[in-house]
Structures are given as structure tokens and as C-alpha cells.
């Protein structure tokens, strides 16, 4: 082998990469993770933009629908409020008195020492 061929062979050996390199594999995985994150962020931004655009486009129709719905609730409002108030009173009346609860706590076995 001539000197030039030896130098060439040495160059191929010197520029070779290690057969296993965990650091390199991890660096590649990091790049992939970064790319995945970018794709995820881009997807979310795109979805947000689509939602905003849809809202802007359909806003007049949605407002009209909401107005109709609220208008239809107007007569039923007092009735609903009365039902809610009645329900609250009924719940309060059917509950055991707070004192009884306190008594149970003070005398759990019911020895009757409490006046």
C-alpha cells in the first residue's frame, strides 16, 4: 500500500462515527419531540382560529337564536323562581334539626347525660 493510500485509509477511519451513540439517538428524539410539539401548537392555533372565524361568521344568527330563546323564557321566569324557592323551603323543613346533630356528636352512645 502506498503512502497516499495509507493516508486515505487513515482518513476514512478518523472520520468514521461510533457504531453506537446514545447521545446522538437522544438528540434525534429531542428534535422529533420538538417537532411534535410544534405540530400540536400549530393544530391548536388552527382550531382556535377556525372557532373564532366560525363565531364571527355565525354571530348574527346565533344572537338571533339566543334572543328568541331568552324571550320565550320570560313568562316562565317567575314560576321557575317560585318553584326554586318552594323547593328550598321543603328541603329545609325535611332536614333533621341541627341541635339533634350536635347532640349526637356530644353523646354518641346516647347515655342521656345531656339535659
Amino acid at each position, binding site marked *: 500500500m502506498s503512502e*497516499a493510500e495509507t493516508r486515505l485509509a487513515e482518513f476514512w477511519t478518523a*472520520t468514521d462515527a461510533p457504531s453506537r451513540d446514545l447521545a*446522538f439517538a437522544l438528540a434525534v428524539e429531542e*428534535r422529533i419531540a420538538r417537532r411534535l410539539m410544534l405540530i400540536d401548537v400549530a393544530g391548536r392555533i388552527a382550531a382556535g382560529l377556525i372557532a373564532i372565524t366560525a363565531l364571527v361568521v355565525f354571530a348574527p344568527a346565533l344572537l338571533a337564536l339566543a334572543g328568541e330563546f331568552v324571550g320565550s323564557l320570560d313568562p316562565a321566569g317567575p314560576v321557575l323562581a317560585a318553584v326554586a324557592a318552594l323547593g328550598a323551603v321543603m328541603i329545609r323543613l325535611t332536614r333533621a334539626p341541627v341541635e339533634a346533630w350536635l347532640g349526637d356528636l356530644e353523646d354518641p352512645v346516647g347515655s342521656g347525660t345531656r339535659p
Partner: protein
Amino acid sequence: MNLSPSDDELVAAARRGSQGAFREIVERHQQAVRAFLRRTLADPADADDLAQETFLAAWTGLWRYRSQASLRSWLCAIAWKKRLTWDRSRRRDRLRLEALEPPAHADQCPDRRLDVGAALATLPEAQRAAVALCLGGGFSHAEAAGTLGLPLGTIKSHVERGRAKLLAVLGDPDE
């Protein structure tokens, strides 16, 4: 008995989303890709950076891989495309820099002797790549032809002429 999965099996698993399979592809072929880029670029850090970009591009375009070509060849083809793009952007940067400050000509120094890397850099790009793949990386001529997208005859002549030029430059640098 050889229990390690074939490249095709690894590609199929990676396509299904297996991170472990893709890591095995990287570990198995990083040596070939990095060595190829190190032999065609002056800076090993640039070469490793491009090699990482190559594997990222491979991960993105894994569905394009057809098993007619070897996986190593397919990966090196991506690396070569990255290398050419990198070279073009680097050339633009260099032109911008040279517009600001004229370059110092290294060949004006009479004592400067070409080392092997510099000798390799004197070869035309495709010839350098063919030499790096076939003489440095042990690729067959057919595999190198697939990698570089050149006809088989062109690869053979690139390797033969490139080798002769390299040996001429290295054999008698004083001439």
C-alpha cells in the same frame, strides 16, 4: 439464531408509532449517515447537525420509504439532499460575508500542504460523495447510484477518477 428485527420490520413498527423501533433505526444507521456527511463536510459538528436533520426528515417521511432500496441507502439519499441544500444556503451566507470583507486566499501560502480532507474538498461535489460512499462507507456502486440518484456508469467513473485524483494529490503534494 439472529433475533434482531430486520430494517423492514423496524420501519413497519415505526410507522405504527413505535418510538423504540425508530430509535433502533437511528442507532443502527447513524454511523453510515454521519460518516458520509463528515467526509463531505469540513466541520464534524455541521455533519452531525445535518445527520440529526436527516433522521428527523426520515421520521417525517417514513411512509415514503420503499423496501426496494436499502434503508441505509435511503437515509443517505436524504442526507445528500440535506447536504446540497445546506451547501446552497452556506454559499449565499459566504457571498454576503465576502461582500463585507474580502476572503484571505489560503492557496497563497506556498508551504501549505493539502491534507486528505482538503484534497477531498477539491473534488466536484458528486464525485466527492461517490468516493465517500464507495471508498469510505463501503457502499456498492449500485447502492451509491441509488443514493445519489445518478446512473451506475457515472458512479463508477466518479469513484475511479476521484480516487486517482486523491492519490495524485496526496502522493506528491509538492508538485
